[in-house]
């Protein structure tokens, strides 16, 4: 009897996907030389929550992109579509509905089809939590963060811009959703 059966172990591959390794090997095999340098820090900042969520204004940041009909196929199951990418921070009114898509990022196109925006954009869910009193309120705007391979653009331009907008909104805490 295999040990995993004897002890009730899970199969070896039933663990979080090792993306760093997968992606490094993948692009090497595709013929690209220098591997991508992922952002990496030893120290991590931490801001304690000052008040409970029920008394807080909660902000939302997303990497999803507004659907733009002139930018090619962004529908469910669309192939990777770089034309739908955006390179500046954008903001949307939290009180209304939005059609945000993820065709511009490398999601798992084999095992999911991007049909339901609620699987990556929880604005309606946050509104329900506000109505139920679980959070104080949803910040008046949500913000879109570019998915940029340039760390310099992200750190020098996008991060300060997001901070400025979150401060304008007077958000007490922020949920960031990485697609």
């Amino acid at each position: 009897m295999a040990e995993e059966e004897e002890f009730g172990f899970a199969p070896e591959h039933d663990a979080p996907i090792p993306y760093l390794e997968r992606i490094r090997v993948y692009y090497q095999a595709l013929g690209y030389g220098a591997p991508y340098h992922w952002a990496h820090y030893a120290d991590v900042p931490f801001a304690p929550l000052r008040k409970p969520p029920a008394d807080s204004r909660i902000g939302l940041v997303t990497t999803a992109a507004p659907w733009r009909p002139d930018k090619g196929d962004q529908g469910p199951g669309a192939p990777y579509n770089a034309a739908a990418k955006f390179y500046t921070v954008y903001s949307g009114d939290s009180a209304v509905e939005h059609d945000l898509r993820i065709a511009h990022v490398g999601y798992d196109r084999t095992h999911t089809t991007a049909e339901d925006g609620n699987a990556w954009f929880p604005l309606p869910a946050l509104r329900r939590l506000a109505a139920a009193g679980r959070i104080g309120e949803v910040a008046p705007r949500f913000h879109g963060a570019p998915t940029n391979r340039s760390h310099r653009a992200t750190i020098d331009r996008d991060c300060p811009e997001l901070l400025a907008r979150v401060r304008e909104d007077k958000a007490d805490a922020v949920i960031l959703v990485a697609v």
Partner: protein
Amino acid sequence: MSLAARHLEANGIPTVIMGCAKDIVEYCGVPRFLFSDFPLGNPTGRPHDPQSQAFTVELALRVLESAPRPRTTVQSPLRWSEDPAWKLDFSNIARLSPEEIARRRAEFDRQKEIAKTVRAKPQAAQ
């Protein structure tokens, strides 16, 4: 997204990240992270499953309010499927034929060119 969370946090604003790429987010180093072991693209719950989505967002709030220290990762107990075989597919070079690798390289080069053109034209999405 991890960099944005770090920047907000360094400026006094508490954050929680919701995502499906555990090693990438943890390698960067973030304050609070709700990890869903789902295929990339489903950070806030299973598609067409409002219960799963509500559970996932609630769990993110729990992480936000209860994380004792930076680098707190909580893994959602939800499973994508009973069979974990889906985890073997994503960008797995061992599963691709030489023809498929060549096709993907050509497509990647094409998309890179498109991205360059988009980036060169400053535009506000909204």
